[in-house]
């Protein structure tokens, strides 16, 4: 076996991981169910404002700053976070749980390359799901609000930012679940850990104490909130949270999760 016949292309690993994800019967069902839930929650939120619109005061009707918020209600966002985090974790935990990881590692002894390929495919898949959910939510909610002439255009800077943040929320959460899955390996523990980190942890920092608020701003959910809502001008209205800070939070969490995973997988017995 000379080096000439040996090809070690990263693209092959990406393709292999894609085959693995695609060949599971549950994948399309989970993705369809998540998308449907997210779109439905946006429709319900928009319909609520549509019905109550006649009772709003003149300024609320004129400025309708709540319109964008109807596209991204908490129910949809939390569902997407939970689903992306869990499925991201399952991608690795199912391999460790079944022992398939040993077959994979014998086939590809370059463990970190396999892990990177898995992370890349997971991130790409959930970016796609996130984009469909974000654009769909926006279209459904603004379509309903257009009936009251209270829709906002997608081309607004605020709308584009909100759609981008909601799109990226999915891969960010998926990679956090992914990293936890590699660190913990045990399926039930990973699931609880992922749900806790993404959904429960921010609740602990909901106080108005300045130092507690600063911690809260480091949470993924809070960062997403900062990026999708428009209800004031300047950082004061958001307890000091900045847009740049929120994007940084979106970048740091998944990077740290994947970096830790790459670190432990190198020397650990499979």
């Amino acid at each position: 076996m000379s080096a000439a016949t040996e090809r070690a292309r990263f693209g092959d690993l990406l393709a292999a991981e894609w085959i693995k994800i695609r060949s599971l019967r549950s994948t399309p069902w989970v993705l369809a169910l998540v998308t449907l839930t997210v779109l439905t929650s946006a429709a319900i939120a928009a319909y609520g404002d549509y019905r109550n619109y006649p009772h709003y005061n003149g300024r609320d009707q004129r400025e309708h700053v709540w319109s964008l918020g109807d596209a991204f209600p908490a129910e949809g966002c939390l569902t997407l976070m939970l689903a992306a985090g869990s499925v991201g974790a399952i991608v690795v935990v199912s391999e460790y749980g079944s022992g398939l990881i040993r077959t994979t590692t014998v086939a590809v002894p370059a463990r970190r390359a396999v892990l990177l390929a898995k992370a890349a495919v997971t991130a790409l898949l959930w970016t796609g799901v996130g984009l469909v959910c974000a654009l769909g939510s926006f279209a459904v909610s603004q379509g309903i609000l257009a009936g009251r002439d209270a829709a906002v255009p997608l081309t607004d800077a605020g709308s584009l930012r909100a759609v981008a943040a909601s799109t990226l929320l999915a891969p960010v959460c998926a990679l956090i679940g992914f990293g936890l899955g590699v660190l913990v390996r045990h399926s039930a523990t990973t699931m609880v850990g992922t749900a806790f980190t993404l959904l429960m942890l921010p609740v602990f920092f909901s106080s108005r104490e300045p130092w507690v608020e600063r911690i809260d701003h480091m949470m993924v959910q809070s960062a997403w909130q900062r990026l999708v809502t428009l209800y004031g001008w300047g950082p004061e209205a958001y307890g000091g949270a900045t847009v740049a800070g929120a994007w940084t939070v979106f970048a740091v969490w998944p990077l740290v999760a994947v970096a830790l995973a790459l670190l432990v997988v190198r020397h650990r017995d499979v």
Partner: protein
Amino acid sequence: MGRCEPAPYGGTVAYVIEVSELTKRYGRRTAVDGLSFTVRPGVVTGFLGPNGAGKTTTLRVLLGLDAPTAGTATVGGVPFASHPRGLRHAGALLDAQQVHGGRTAHAHLAALARSNGLPARRVSDVLAEVGLEAAAQRRIGGFSLGMKQRLGVAAALLGDPPALLFDEPFNGMDPAGVLWLRGLFRRLADEGRTVFLSSHLMSEMQSTASELIVVGQGRLVAAEPLSAFAARAGRRCVVVGSPDATELAPRLTAAGAEVVPESAERLVVTGLPADRIGALALAHHIVLHELTTRTASLEEAFMALTADHVEYPAGAAR
């Protein structure tokens, strides 16, 4: 540039499996303790030992899954983990249950083949080789253990590798499957490959392997051709029954035999065949009422050899 097909295995590269002073500890438990042996290409080598002897651990270290605590384990002269892609260097079946039940046999193999840049054609080739073509599109979760073993063998063959390592490959196989697998192993060895099989049953190895590595409690017990092991183990003895056993015994000893009295009228004789014992008794007018040749089975020999090395002896603890 087109796809590089794996070169048909020509037996030009000898992939020797070499374990040298290998020690592996998990916490305070020592699974493998200073183990050294060599497995050569062209023959089927059996890796025998009772449960808990360290066979699986040794295979895991050989395949780069576990890091050795001390010593080295190489396949083809290098640690297996140093290859970026493994399937062209060694095929392995560690545990047939280690698959995702939700995937089809075809998808499972297709992902493995793709990860190593092997052409998709190899998937149908190996499925045909192990007789699973008809089940290719079925989900693995519904497979019997025997079918999963076949799938595991198919995965091991994907890269047409010069070295093959199997952990308990006969588990869950029906008699037809066992026969097929034996034939396959012999053929793979005849093609010049290194074939290394672990088992805790001597009977499985007896008609499959020609070389043996026997381990017990993580240490080497024997490394020799099966025939040598059999000759050593299967030393024949003759049971002689006679009312004049006490008179016969010294005459047998004088003729070069080793005599162990079993009772007043029964002797166990080694080193002298039954016909010579009969002739000797006749010459001295000694009446015999029993003359039986006994051959110890390989299984018994293996048990005797590893008796001191069994980790969980039955009935020893309360």
